[in-house]
Every structure is written in C-alpha cells, then in structure tokens.
C-alpha cells in the first residue's frame, strides 16, 4: 500500500502522534548531522504554483537524508505548457522518482494524482484545499514549544480562504483543542468546516478582536490575509492590514504564550516581536525540515 500524504482527514490522532514523535529523531539530521537514510532515492518536486519555503524545505529534507531531488521547473517551460494533463505528468514522473511532492492550484489535485501515481504523492498544497505537511509541522511546533494537551489556541486572520488554517483546525480538533477564531466578518471560517470541527470535539468561539482572548491562550497562530485568494480586489483592500501583532499588544500576554505564523508574513507581525520570548515562527519554519524528513522516510519506507 502506497503511503500518500494527501489530507489531514486521512490521519488518525495515533498516526499523527507517531509522525510527531518520529520527527524528533530527525532533528539532529535537520541541524546538519550526516545521514544516508535516503541515499539512492530520488524525490520529484512538481510545483504548479509558486512556493519558496515548502519547496526548499522538502529539498533540504531530502538532501540532508542523502537523497536526490529532480524538479519539474516552472510550469511555463514544461510539458504542462503544451497541455499535458496532470494525470499524465504524474504517470511519467512516477517512473523517474521514488516519491512526488505536488503543489497545484486546483483543489483535489493531489487526491487525483494519488489515483494515478505508482509512487507516493506528498501534497504540498492544492488550491484552497489541503496542506497537510504544513499542518504537521505546525502541530510539531506546538508539541515542541508549548503543548498539544489542553491546548488553547487562537487562529487569526484569513480563516475563509487560508488552507493552512483549515487543515490545522481539523487536526487540532482531534486533540480537542479549545479554539478561538479571530477574523473580520467577511473572512470567517466557512460554516461547513466549523460544523465538522465541532463534530470532532473541538471547542470553538469566534471574535473579531485579538485582545479579547490574549490573556487566555497558549498559542497565537497568525496568518497572512492572502491577496491572491480574493476574487474581488476591493474586498481585499477592506481587510488588508486589519490585524497587527506588536510588542505593545503582547504586553497583555501570559508569559508562556507562543506566537506562530506559517510565513511569509507581510505586516501581520511587527518585526520588533521577533526578539521577544513569544516569537516562534522561525523555529516553526525550521521544524518543517524534520517533519518532512519523517514523511519522506515513511513514504519511501525507510522507517
């Protein structure tokens, strides 16, 4: 059975715990300790949408484990520009590589790719859909820097279009987290997702103001309001820059609060916050490497 990584919905809490615990063992390698675990293996990266950190962190993970990476390159200069279907591309690349990392603008692209692929597919984001490796590294960050048990977390920003937040909220519901959703009215989390989360056992409250809850949370998870996800630019202008986490704001925060952000940030977190004890977003982006190492190793049956 191929181990595709498509959606957090495919994982039970036990499976997530196994991944998170294994990721710990990969941390020294992520920090530079030599490994040849995936020596002789080839990873193909197919990014139909631009990505910096996800692509580079997958590449880093693969290379630090001794493996090789081949890249589709830009969509404009590849067979895709000639009109090749994703299904065909996947079948062709699957004959070259031992696993495929895929980012695609269409929701469900990774699930379909998995139907056609003879090697594991790792979903690195499909449209406004899933981004499970980001979710796993978010969970790992919480586990390492705070705690997943009895977690009180506030998710801030674009909760309507933000794919990372949907995946993360779903996974947190498996941990029965107490979640506060903070967003402007027009960017609230879709009802269908909230209903789903409650069904899983999440406790959900909604507000439009960070200060309302700052004193009662362990994690403040900030997201960028993504211009590219807005069908109407006028709608974007109404909400751009609405939330800004500053040193001043964090004066009201409890000592053990951590601030996370999937990055890249624009102006949601003031750079002055970087040097405070609260900031964890750079650690978070580092943790992407050991987590992706774990997933690559599992996908290629090396662990």
């Amino acid at each position, binding site marked *: 059975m191929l181990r595709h990584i498509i*959606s957090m919905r495919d994982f039970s809490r036990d499976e997530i715990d196994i991944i998170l615990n294994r990721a710990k063992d990969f941390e020294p390698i992520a920090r530079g300790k030599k490994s040849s675990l995936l020596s002789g293996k080839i990873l193909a990266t197919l990014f139909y949408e631009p990505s910096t950190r996800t692509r580079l962190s997958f590449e880093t993970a693969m290379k630090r484990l001794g493996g090789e990476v081949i890249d589709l390159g830009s969509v404009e200069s590849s067979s895709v520009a000639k009109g090749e279907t*994703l299904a065909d591309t996947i079948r062709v690349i699957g004959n070259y590589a031992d696993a495929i990392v895929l980012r695609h603008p*269409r*929701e*469900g692209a990774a*699930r*379909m790719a998995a139907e056609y692929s003879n090697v594991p597919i790792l979903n690195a984001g*499909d449209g406004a*859909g899933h981004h499970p490796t980001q979710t796993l590294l978010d969970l790992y960050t919480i586990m390492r820097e705070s705690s997943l048990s009895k977690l009180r977390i506030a998710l801030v920003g674009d909760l309507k279009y933000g794919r990372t937040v949907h995946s993360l909220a779903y996974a947190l519901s498996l941990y029965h987290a107490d979640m506060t959703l903070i967003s402007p009215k027009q960017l609230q989390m879709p009802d269908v997702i909230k209903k789903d989360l409650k069904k899983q056992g999440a406790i959900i409250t909604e507000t439009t103001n960070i200060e309302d809850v700052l004193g009662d949370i362990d994690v403040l998870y900030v997201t960028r309001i993504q211009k590219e996800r807005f069908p109407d630019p006028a709608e974007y202008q109404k909400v751009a820059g609405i939330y800004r986490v500053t040193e001043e704001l964090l004066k009201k925060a409890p000592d053990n609060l951590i601030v996370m952000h999937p990055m890249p940030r624009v102006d949601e977190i003031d750079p002055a916050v970087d040097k405070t004890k609260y900031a964890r977003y750079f650690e978070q982006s580092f943790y992407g490497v050991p987590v992706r190492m774990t997933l690559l190793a599992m996908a290629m049956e090396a662990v």
Partner: protein
Amino acid sequence: MKRNEEDNPNNSSLKKEMRVRPIRRGTVIDHITAGQALNVLKILGIYGTTTAVVSVAMNVPSGVLGFKDIVKVEDRELEEEEVDRISLIAPNATINIIREFEVKEKHRVALPEHLDGVVKCDNPNCISNTSEPVISKFTVNKKPVELRCIYCDHVISEGIADHLI
C-alpha cells in the same frame, strides 16, 4: 391462479381508468417524490434517445405521499446500484421488478455510501471540473443527506438534483 386485477392487462373494467397500463416485464419505480420523475430518468441515464418503452406519470394522487410520480421502464430490470441513486431526490421511492405482469421483487431505495459520476461538484476550482481524466466522486452522509467531494471536500447539501450530471 387468480391474478391481481390491477395487474391484469385484459381486465376491461379497469382499463378505462388506468393512466398507465401494466407492463409484462421491466421495472416500476413507484412513490417518487412528486415532480422528480424526469430527474429520476436522468439519473438512470434514460434520455429521449432511448428505445425502451418508458411511461411516466406525474402528480398522481397517493394515500401516503399526497401526490407521487411513477416511472415504468419496460424490458429492463434495473440493478440495485442504479436505482439506489434515485434516493438522492426521491427517498421514498419503491422499486418493483416485474416479470409476466407480476411483481417478482420489491424493495425501497437506499442511499449508497459512494456516488461516482452522477453529481457534479459545485466547486468550480475542483480537479473533477477540469479536463483531467477524472469523474466526480462523493461520499454520502445519510442524515441529513450531504455529499462530500472526495477530491476537494466540498459539501453539497441542498439542491442535489440541480447538480446531476
């Protein structure tokens, strides 16, 4: 053997009152939600080009439902999997398989667990709405009736008949 009067095509006393004559062989779908008969045909893939004899009765008074639709398809015994799809739009429908004017099998429709290639995902950005070689696939939640696209997770809960392919 005494044949049920309603099922006897030669019973002249009933003949004038009958809206649709009994069939010798085929499938009768009864208790269809009034107004959904044409959608039922659509789900079954029975279009104007069919060569089968198809009878449709709409808004027939019914003791249980008030009004109902009935569809009769001659010379074709519909498979359970085919007819179960009907439950999406006509949950009370009953299926009667007829042989030699007699009801040989009778059962209610039941929602299937999965639905492939019947309903179009209403998320325009879903991979199933592209030129990729992929058909729509949904998992079915029964109460309330909701379809979840296996590709994009989009949920269709209202106006399912409007999304029939």
